[in-house]
């Protein structure tokens, strides 16, 4: 298991941005009223933000969040030495969106920038990558931008995917600080589960054909094209309630901590029943677990920072001890413990 620790880097602030357009699963008429009630109760997803036809992309959301956090923390753009963009819905196949963001944000050419292609585990993975580089390189400041517009693909005719995902972009500002508490990470992967969440066509293994866009009925209520995201809910559920508690139990042993050591445990916002099962297995009290599933749905790599900004912005001004865990597509999962001091969390922006 990849256990590692990183010193001298601190999260200074987090900002989030979502599209204005809100849709409610109570109006999702592709399924019956009874199914709708059960879906909302089980997944916890009531409302979501969707980019719709606005033309807004993930980088637009992340850019707005980045500008906000730079402003609120009075950060000089010239001090940003690294930018990492974590997303599975980038603007182009190439170039990497992080590099276009360097320019659009007016960051100096001395800033290194690259993308990471991860979803639900992306925030923790991205944090481990940027913190490592900043720590080793003694870089002053860095921006970790995480987001996805997962709603842009799935057709309404796929009840197993369409009602779950919302769009969002976040920006996390990090700084080199020798007084920062050590961050501890445990990152894992299992490519045997690569088909559990997959977009099958449009990549180099299976390029688009005319048929990639044709909706095919897979079972009742589930029609999709092979360019659309496909989700094996049962497999993901099983993976999450098995591997995540195992990862965190080992993490507790390794770091000599337990649920009482943390003020908040922020999980990737996947599915309420799944997250609650994980919570119960780890014996975390409910009051330590914030949720935004009902407001924003599953926002992929944005879900952890967006939940912190949305639910805890007024509770993080003092010292806070965090446990954060992301898990999903890959399969990939990762947990981090860290401390913040006077974290700056401005209000969520609507675009």
């Amino acid at each position, binding site marked *: 298991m990849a256990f590692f620790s990183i010193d001298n880097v601190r999260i200074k602030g987090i900002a989030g941005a979502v599209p204005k357009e809100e849709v409610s699963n109570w109006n999702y008429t592709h399924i019956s009223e009874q*199914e709708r009630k059960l879906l909302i109760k*089980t997944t916890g997803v009531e409302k979501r933000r969707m980019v719709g036809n606005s033309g807004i992309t993930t980088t637009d959301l992340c850019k707005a969040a980045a500008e906000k956090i730079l402003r609120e923390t009075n950060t000089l753009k010239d001090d940003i030495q690294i930018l990492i963009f974590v997303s599975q819905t980038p603007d182009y196949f190439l170039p990497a969106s992080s590099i276009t963001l360097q320019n659009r944000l007016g960051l100096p050419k001395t800033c290194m920038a690259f993308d990471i292609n991860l979803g639900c585990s992306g925030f923790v993975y991205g944090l481990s990558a940027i913190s490592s580089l900043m720590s080793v390189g003694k870089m002053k400041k860095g921006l970790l931008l995480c987001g996805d517009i997962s709603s842009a693909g799935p057709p309404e005719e796929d009840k197993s995917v369409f009602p779950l995902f919302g769009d969002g972009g976040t920006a996390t500002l990090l700084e080199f600080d020798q007084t920062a508490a050590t961050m501890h990470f445990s990152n894992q992967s299992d490519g045997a589960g690569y088909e559990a969440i997959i977009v099958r066509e449009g990549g180099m293994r299976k390029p688009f054909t005319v048929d990639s866009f044709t909706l095919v009925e897979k079972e009742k209520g589930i029609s999709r094209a092979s360019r659309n995201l496909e989700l094996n*809910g*049962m497999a993901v559920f*099983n993976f999450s*309630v098995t591997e995540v508690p195992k990862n965190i139990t080992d993490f507790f042993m390794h770091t000599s901590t337990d649920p009482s050591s943390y003020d908040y445990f922020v999980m990737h916002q996947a599915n309420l*029943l*799944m997250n609650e099962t994980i919570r119960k297995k780890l014996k975390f009290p409910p009051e330590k677990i914030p949720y935004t599933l009902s407001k924003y749905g599953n926002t992929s790599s944005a879900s952890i920072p967006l939940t912190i900004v949305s639910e805890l912005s007024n509770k993080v001004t003092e010292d806070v001890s965090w446990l954060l865990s992301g898990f999903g597509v890959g399969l990939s999962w990762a947990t981090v413990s860290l401390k913040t001091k006077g974290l700056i969390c401005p209000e969520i922006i609507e675009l």
Partner: protein
Amino acid sequence: MDINEFIQKLQAEFEDVPAGFLKPETKITDIEGWGSMHALIVIALIDTEYGVTLKGDELRKVQSVQELYNLIVQLKNNPQ
């Protein structure tokens, strides 16, 4: 654990299921509107209450409440 306790727990998860509907011989797919959400609820319940994580295939293979209960007992006694 016994099967009556298990039935009570199942009953508590499904508010739309009339009291007394679930018996050891009841087919779980006869629960009204049975679908993937129900399956997730059952798997989550069994995981939380009995510490056994059923796979989708395992759940699909059992028919009655009694068979499901037997499977839990079997997996609990012989962890994989």
